[in-house]
């Protein structure tokens, strides 16, 4: 009985001192289990594989497990390339990166490298599209989305000067246009100066933070650049996924951010783990 406290202390130390690849592998398995695909054969396959990796510690970083996970994800998503969301592409890339890391000489370094490039490139293309699309710099994307997307309704109501009845009517008009487009007609959406101002603020904030993350993760630089990248990424995760609950994306970005932390960066590690907990808790609201 007297050996129990010592054993507990050793177990806790083993968790805290595990190399970052161990933590990243386990959190990715957890993400696959909790925020993986819903329904279908892929969900069953991933539940079995990710569940086995979490239950059997020797398996969590094993190359064969990650090769099986990556192969299943690529195989099942191959027929749906024009429909699946971008975070599913990112999950496929990350599963492949985990498989390569499990095979590489330095798993933690391989995960960190791939995580850095995946974050930087994803945000670079996201920024590119926002500039190419032509609906950001004049605020028009958010002017529409604030009114049309019910997830942003609280913002439109509190800060955009829109009344609940106006929102409800706008959603009805859009549905009507979509169900019988050939009947003609057009729908003027509600919103005045307050909505336009809010839309512009959101547009420029989004472009600025996404471009900053892309540059801070892609450009070479020292610890200060990397730290600034972490702050921007954490700020993006908290500000975006509190409003738009794409938890799979938020989870993945958090894990890839976590993979960048070397050695004793316990504050950053705790911040990312805190972000994961916050994402989970926000689902309860």
């Amino acid at each position, binding site marked *: 009985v007297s050996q129990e406290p010592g054993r507990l202390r050793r177990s806790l130390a083993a968790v805290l001192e595990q190399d970052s690849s161990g933590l990243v592998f386990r959190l990715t398995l957890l993400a696959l289990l909790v925020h993986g695909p819903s329904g279908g054969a892929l969900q069953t396959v991933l539940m079995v594989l990710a569940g086995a990796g979490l239950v059997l510690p020797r398996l969590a970083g094993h190359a064969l497990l990650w090769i099986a996970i990556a192969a299943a994800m690529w195989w099942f998503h191959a027929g749906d390339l024009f429909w699946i969301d971008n975070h599913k592409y990112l999950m496929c*890339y990350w599963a492949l990166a985990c498989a390569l890391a499990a095979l590489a*000489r330095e798993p933690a370094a391989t995960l960190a490298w791939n995580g850095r490039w*995946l974050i930087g490139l994803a945000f670079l293309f996201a920024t590119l599209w926002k500039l190419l699309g032509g609906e950001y710099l004049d605020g028009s*994307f958010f002017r529409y989305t604030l009114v049309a997307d019910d997830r942003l309704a609280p913002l439109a109501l509190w800060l955009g000067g829109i009344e609940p009845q106006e929102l409800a009517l706008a959603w009805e008009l859009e549905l009507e*246009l979509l169900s019988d487009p*050939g009947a003609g*007609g*057009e729908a003027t959406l509600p919103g005045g100066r307050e909505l336009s101002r809010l839309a512009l603020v959101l547009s420029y904030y989004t472009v600025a933070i996404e471009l900053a993350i892309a540059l801070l993760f892609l450009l070479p630089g020292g610890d200060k650049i990397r730290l600034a990248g972490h702050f921007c990424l954490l700020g993006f995760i908290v500000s975006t996924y509190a409003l738009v609950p794409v938890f799979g994306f938020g989870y993945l970005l958090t894990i890839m951010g976590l993979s960048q932390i070397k050695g004793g960066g316990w504050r950053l590690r705790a911040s990312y783990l805190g972000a994961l907990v916050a994402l989970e808790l926000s689902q309860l609201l």
Partner: protein
Amino acid sequence: MEGKVRWAGDEIEVLARWLVPGLLVLVAMVQVGLSLRTELTPWKGGGFGMFAVVDSPELRTVEILATTAGGEVVRLDAADFLASREWRSMRSMPMPGQLGRIGERVLSERIVPMGSRRDVALVQLGREGVGGDEGWWRPLYADDPVELEGVLVRSVELGWWKISYDGEGHRLLARRIGEPLRMGAGGGGGR
């Protein structure tokens, strides 16, 4: 790591570093090219264009106007004639050939008014039927009541549409994508 399979050689280490970022760039470049040249929505296809433009798959639809054997022009929902996976992919990247596939299925099915199953139940309860759902019809399903026979479609007109947002006027408009397709005897429904 315990029980690990290890690769040897610097070439493999290079692959472990560049394969994944290279794949992302390749897929994203193809997606940008396709979106600029075709109707692929920037939201889909792995180019990270979600939340970049209004033009999402949810704002795209196929209008189907069918003329029944009795000469009545009715509306059908494309989703009723396709597997959900197929319908989702189509809306991400509308192409003219897809209309032909939907049209063939419409012409090969018997159709009934949308509310007719409920009508049969109401009649059995001794109540009055509601008479369908504002001109919307659907395919006859295998588990429909035997009282429902359905009617054949003589011709059909199909067209892709999308709801566009005009930022200057802050308004929504329905716009056609491409030309409508007419199939069957007499060249299709029409308004």
